[in-house]
């Protein structure tokens, strides 16, 4: 390879040189920054950061609410997802069908409609007052369907001979799941799970329609009070990135740790 192309192209084998990687990163960053800088300059917009800065406490409170709601939903939807995946493989046929109905209905309808129906009809009928708890439940039900499918695909990716081996050494059904299936399923499920968790954080923004004052809700309020939409929504984007980027990095780290050849 010529020296010049070595700076720009990844080698056929092995990782690229650190300098080349940095250069590539810089070029990409400049390109993105250039496009947006050009667009915003053309906008001829008078920025009013000072007006929005007044409401920084509201932003922080909203952001924190998003963190708590997303994190709670992330945990409960993961548990739910595993249960759904197990139900879909259950010998009890009614359980299988129930899990399938749930997955198809949740995946096939807009989250917006689910939030309205669950909040104004179901939660109301069962006298469930706390909108934050209801919000977490709705988000968990929504995300749990996707996670269930991801986990099911992971479980099904474990080879037949692996199950034979596990049975042959005399493990019980529960032990086979615990020691053989789940560790291997987790590895193949990590990339789609990362995507799903990131979506979950962003989907929590829709809870603003039932007046849960999470991050997006706060930003929308600030935007209308100060009449400065960009100053309100750009920090909003940044606030979500602060949450979603660590998820991506963390799952990539897990992927590295669970790497092995099959």
């Amino acid at each position, binding site marked *: 390879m010529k020296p010049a192309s070595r700076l720009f192209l990844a080698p056929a084998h092995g990782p690229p040189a650190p300098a080349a990687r940095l250069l590539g990163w810089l070029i990409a960053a400049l390109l993105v920054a250039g496009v947006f800088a050009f667009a915003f300059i053309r906008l001829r917009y008078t920025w009013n950061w000072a007006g929005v800065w007044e409401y920084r406490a509201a932003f922080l409170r909203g952001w924190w609410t998003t963190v708590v709601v997303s994190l709670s939903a992330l945990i409960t939807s993961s548990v739910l997802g595993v249960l759904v995946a197990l139900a879909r493989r259950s010998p009890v046929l009614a359980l299988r069908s129930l899990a399938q109905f749930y997955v198809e209905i949740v995946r096939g309808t807009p989250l917006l409609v689910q939030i309205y129906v669950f909040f104004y009809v179901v939660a109301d009928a069962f006298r469930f007052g706390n909108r934050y708890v209801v919000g977490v439940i709705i988000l968990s039900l929504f995300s749990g369907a996707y996670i269930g499918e991801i986990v099911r695909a992971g479980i099904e990716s474990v080879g037949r001979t692996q199950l034979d081996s596990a049975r042959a050494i005399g493990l019980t059904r529960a032990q086979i799941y615990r020691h053989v299936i789940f560790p291997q399923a987790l590895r193949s499920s990590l990339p789609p799970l990362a995507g799903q968790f990131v979506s979950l954080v962003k989907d929590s923004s829709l809870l603003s329609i039932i007046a849960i004052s999470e991050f997006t809700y706060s930003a929308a309020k600030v935007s209308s009070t100060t009449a400065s939409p960009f100053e309100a929504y750009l920090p909003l984007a940044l606030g979500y990135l602060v949450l979603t980027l660590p998820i991506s990095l963390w799952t990539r780290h897990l992927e590295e740790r669970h790497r*092995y050849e099959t």
Partner: protein
Amino acid sequence: MRLELESLSKSFGDQTVLEDLTLDLADVRSLALIGPSGGGKSTLLRLVAGLDRPDSGTLRLNGEPVPFDDEPALLRYRRTIGTVFQAFNLFPHLTALENIVLPLEKAHGHSRADARCIALAELDRFRLAAHAHKKPGQLSGGQRQRVALVRALAIKPRLLLFDEPTSALDPEMTAEVLDAIRALSEEGRDFLLITHEMSFARAVADHVAFLAIGKILETGPAEAVFEHPQTPACRAFLERILHF
């Protein structure tokens, strides 16, 4: 061991794989199942391993019927048998050592320290100690099969089953795995072996059963079957396979 089959049948869909097998082999130490592919060898081995259920008939090992209709008893039965398949025996997310420790600890009630001790000693015996902390992906095919053999052996099974343990290996690795099996044979362990390596079957097995189209067509001491096959089918099979 004593292996008794009594009108044992098994079919998958409308395909009959084992048809009414009846056999009584007493005082057999090592049995080789030979015959053409699709003849039912692996299916029979899976029944002996307690991994599948027959459609009808009984299978007795050392006089005790295999409890096909009682899942907890079948699980206990499986724990007394060591099985090595063609490939992918080992769990890829565990090291060689962990692969051996898992059944000792979870299925046989050894403490973790105890299980590690047993596993390391067995690995050492098969000159695999240097690979104890490698995952299967870092081992050669032959090493993987030897670790699988150690795992099957570490639980002190009353019977070892080998389902074509070398068919996925190149000749050099085949030799290394066969050496390990030969060592077990010389220790006088009971085993049942499916193999296409006829000279090896002849060297390590004291009994041979020839299976084709779901039936046991011929059984006898290894020498006798290989030297003077009685049925035309077995003779034709051996001639074809020993031709080269």
